[in-house]
C-alpha cells in the first residue's frame, strides 16, 4: 500500500476520533452549565479549551468564557483550525484521498457524517440544540467506526486506521487527565465533598466512563480509583493501557504482514512496559502530572516513528 494512503487513513481516523473527543468534552461543559450554573460552567468551558489546545486561539478573539461563545468556537469557529467542523473536513478530505483504500460503506458513512454535521453546523448552535449536535457527532463518528469494523479487511489498511484512532485516544485521555489532575490530587486520600464528587464525575464523563466506573465500584467515587481506572484498567476502551494494547496488536499486525518490526515497535514496547509495571500508588507518589507528561511525550514519539517507518511522507 502507498505510504501516502497509510498517512491518509491514519489521519482520517485521528481526526474522527478528535471530533468525537471534542464532542464528549463539550458534553461535560454543557452538563455543568445545566446543573451548576454559569459560574462553575465557565471554569469547565475554559478547561475544555485547554484540554483541546484551543485556549490560546480562543483568547485572541474573546474576553470571557460564555458558554455559547465557547461551544460555537469549538464546534464551528470559522477561524479555528481545530474546530469539530474543521476536523470533519480534514477527515473527509483524507478519506477522499484514500478512497480506494476504503470500502464503499466506510467511505459513504464518512461522507454522510460530513454532510449531516456540516448542515447541522451551518448556523450558530444554541444552547437548546447543543445536546442534539453533540449526540449527532457521537453517532456519526460511531457509525464510521462501525462501518469500518464491519466491512474492512483486517489488513495493513485497517491497522493504520486503528493506529490513528488509538494514538489519538491515548493522547486525548492523557490530556484530560493532565488538565484535571489537580481535581483528583488534593483529595486523593480523603473522601470528598459533594462538590468534589461532581468534579470527579466530570472527569469520568469526559471519557464516557462514568457509568462503567460506577458499575465496577458500586457507585463509590474516589479520585485514586478514577485515576487508576483511566490509566491502568485494560477493560475500559478509553484508558491509556487499553489504547496501548490496541497500538501493540495493530503494530504486531503490520510486523506480521511486512515480515519485521520497526523502531515504532521498540518505542511502544518500552513505553508499554513502563505502563504495565507501575501501580497507581507509584504513579501518584512520583507525581501524576509528571507521569502524564511523560506518557504524552512517549505517544508523540511512537506516532512520529510510525509515520517515518512506514513512509507516510517522502
Amino acid at each position: 500500500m502507498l505510504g501516502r494512503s497509510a498517512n491518509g487513513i491514519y489521519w482520517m481516523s485521528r481526526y474522527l476520533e478528535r471530533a468525537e473527543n471534542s464532542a464528549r468534552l463539550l458534553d461535560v461543559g454543557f452538563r455543568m452549565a445545566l446543573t451548576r450554573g454559569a459560574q462553575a460552567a465557565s471554569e469547565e468551558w475554559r478547561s475544555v479549551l485547554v484540554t483541546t489546545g484551543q485556549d490560546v486561539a480562543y483568547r485572541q478573539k474573546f474576553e470571557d468564557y460564555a458558554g455559547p461563545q465557547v461551544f460555537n468556537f469549538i464546534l464551528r469557529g470559522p477561524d479555528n483550525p481545530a474546530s469539530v467542523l474543521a476536523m470533519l473536513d480534514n477527515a473527509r478530505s483524507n478519506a477522499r484521498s484514500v478512497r480506494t483504500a476504503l470500502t464503499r460503506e466506510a467511505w459513504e458513512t464518512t461522507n454522510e457524517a460530513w454532510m449531516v454535521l456540516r448542515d447541522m453546523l451551518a448556523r450558530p448552535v444554541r444552547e437548546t440544540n447543543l445536546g442534539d449536535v453533540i449526540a449527532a457527532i457521537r453517532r456519526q463518528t460511531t457509525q464510521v467506526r462501525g462501518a469500518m469494523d464491519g466491512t474492512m479487511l483486517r489488513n495493513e489498511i485497517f491497522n493504520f486506521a486503528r493506529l490513528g484512532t488509538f494514538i489519538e485516544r491515548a493522547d486525548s485521555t492523557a490530556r484530560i487527565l493532565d488538565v484535571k489532575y489537580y481535581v483528583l490530587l488534593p483529595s486523593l486520600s480523603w473522601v470528598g465533598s459533594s462538590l468534589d464528587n461532581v468534579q470527579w464525575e466530570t472527569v469520568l464523563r469526559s471519557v464516557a466512563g462514568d457509568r462503567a466506573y460506577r458499575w465496577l465500584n458500586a457507585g463509590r467515587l474516589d479520585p485514586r480509583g478514577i485515576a487508576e481506572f483511566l490509566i491502568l484498567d485494560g477493560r475500559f476502551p478509553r484508558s491509556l493501557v487499553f489504547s496501548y494494547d490496541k497500538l501493540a496488536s495493530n503494530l504486531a499486525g503490520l510486523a506480521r504482514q511486512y515480515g519485521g518490526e520497526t523502531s515504532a515497535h521498540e518505542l511502544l514496547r518500552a513505553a508499554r512496559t513502563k505502563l504495565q509495571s507501575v501501580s497507581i500508588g507509584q504513579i501518584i507518589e512520583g507525581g501524576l502530572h509528571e507521569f502524564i507528561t511523560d506518557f504524552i511525550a512517549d505517544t508523540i514519539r511512537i506516532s512520529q516513528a510510525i509515520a517515518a517507518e512506514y513512509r507516510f511522507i517522502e
Partner: protein
Amino acid sequence: MQSTIGATYDEMYDADGTIRPAYARFHDWYEGQDRDWLKKQDAEAERFFRRTGITFNVYGDDAGEERLIPFDMIPRIITANEWRKLSRGIEQRVRALNAFLHDLYHRQEIVRSGRLPERLLRGNEAFLPQMVGFTPPGDVYTHVVGIDLVRTGPDEFMVLEDNARTPSGVSYMLENRETMMAMFPELFSRVAVRPVSDYPRRLARSLAACAPSCAGERPVVAVLTPGIFNSAYFEHAFLADQMGAELVEGSDLRVVDGRIAMRTTTGYQPIDVIYRRVDDDYLDPLSFNKDSVLGVAGIMDIYRAGRITIANAPGTGIADDKAIYSFMPEIVEFYTGEKPILQNVPTWRCSEPEALKYVLDNLKDLVVKEVHGSGGYGMLIGPTSSRGEIARFEQKLRARPENYIAQPTLALSTVPIFTKAGLAPRHVDLRPFVLVSPGGIDITPGGLTRVALKKGSLVVNSSQGGGTKDSWVLED
C-alpha cells in the same frame, strides 16, 4: 455548406408523436408508473449521488465546492442495428487515429503526401518533439478514447470531436447504470440492455496488455491523479478502485533503478503501466512544465527507454486539435484505405481567408471554437449570443483567425427528460468509450449521454449546466 442543418430529430417520438420502436418497451413501462412515485425516485437519485460522493469540482468556483452532475432518469436508447453501424465507424476512426499518431511522430507520410498542411504541426503545443521517433509499447497511442457523437437524423450520426488525450466521464456511464438498476430493477427484466459494468475489468486487461517488456506476468497498473481538488478526482478514484489498481499522485512516484516506482509502506515498488489523468504538460517537470508538482521528474526518460507504459501516450492531444479534426475524413481514408463510415460536422477553418470571410459574415448562425479548447470554454454559439458577445468574439477571431474553426449550429437530436410537468425534449450528445491494445479495439456498448437541461440549449458540457442519462444499447 449551410450554417444551420435540418429540423430537430427526437429520438423517442416521430413527427406524428408516435413512439419510435427503440423506445416502445420503455414507454410501455413508463406509462404504467405512478407519476408521484417517479418524482420521489427522481429526488432519491440525487440523494444517492450525494451520499456516494459522485461529485465534480467546477474550476473558478468557490474553493473546492463540489457539485453533482444532474442525472436524468429517462434513458437514451440505441437499437442493436444503429449500434452495429456506429461501432464499425468508431472502430475505423480509432484505428485511423492511432495510425495517424504513429505517422506524425515518425515519417509524417501524410504531410509528405500533401494531405495535411505542415503548418498545423509547426508551433502546435500539443505536438511533442519528445515523442518523435519513439514508438510506445505495443505501438498504442490512444489506450482510451472518447468519440463525441451527435445525431441529426434517423441515420445521421456525426463526430463532433475526438478525445484522444484523456477522455473523462466513464464513471458516470457506470454509475448511471447502477443507479437505474437500483431504482427500476423490473425495467431491466422487461428490456434487454447490453451491460456496461465490465468496463473497469476490460480497461485493466487492455492496459495490462500494453505493458512494456520488463513487466512481469501480472503487470502493475497505477492510476495517476492530480489529487482530490481535480474536477474528475471521483472518477480517478472510482476507476482505480474498480480495477484494483493503486491510485497514485506525483509525490508518490520517483525513478528508482531505471523504473518508475511508487512509495509504499515497505519501500519503492516499480510500476509497469501508468494510466495517467494528468495532462502532458504536467507529466514531467524535466521535460515539460518545470513547475509541475503533479508529475514525476524523469518519467519521459524512463518512457523513452521502454520501461514504462504511459496511457494515453504523451503527444496524443495533437489529434484533439480542432484544425486537425477538420482533416479527419482525409486522415481516415489515408490510413485505412476506406471511406469514412462516420461523418465529420462540416467545419470552416478560419485560417483560410475565404472560410474566415464566410464565418465573419455569418457569426450569428455559427458555433465558433478555439482549435485547442475543450470543455465548452472559449466558444461562441452564435444563435444564443447577444450582439455584444458576438462583437467581442469577432475581435478575438480577427486578431488570431488561425486559432479558430467554425461549424454550423447543428440541430442536435433530442431525448425527453423527466420534469415535474412530464416528459420534455432536450438536446443530447453521446460519448462512447473505446479501449485500444495490441489485442484489438474494444468499444463499450453505449457510452455517456450528456443532455442540455435548459430548454433549447445546445451546450451539454457538465461545466455549463449539462446533465447525463443512462445510455442503452438494446440486445439483438
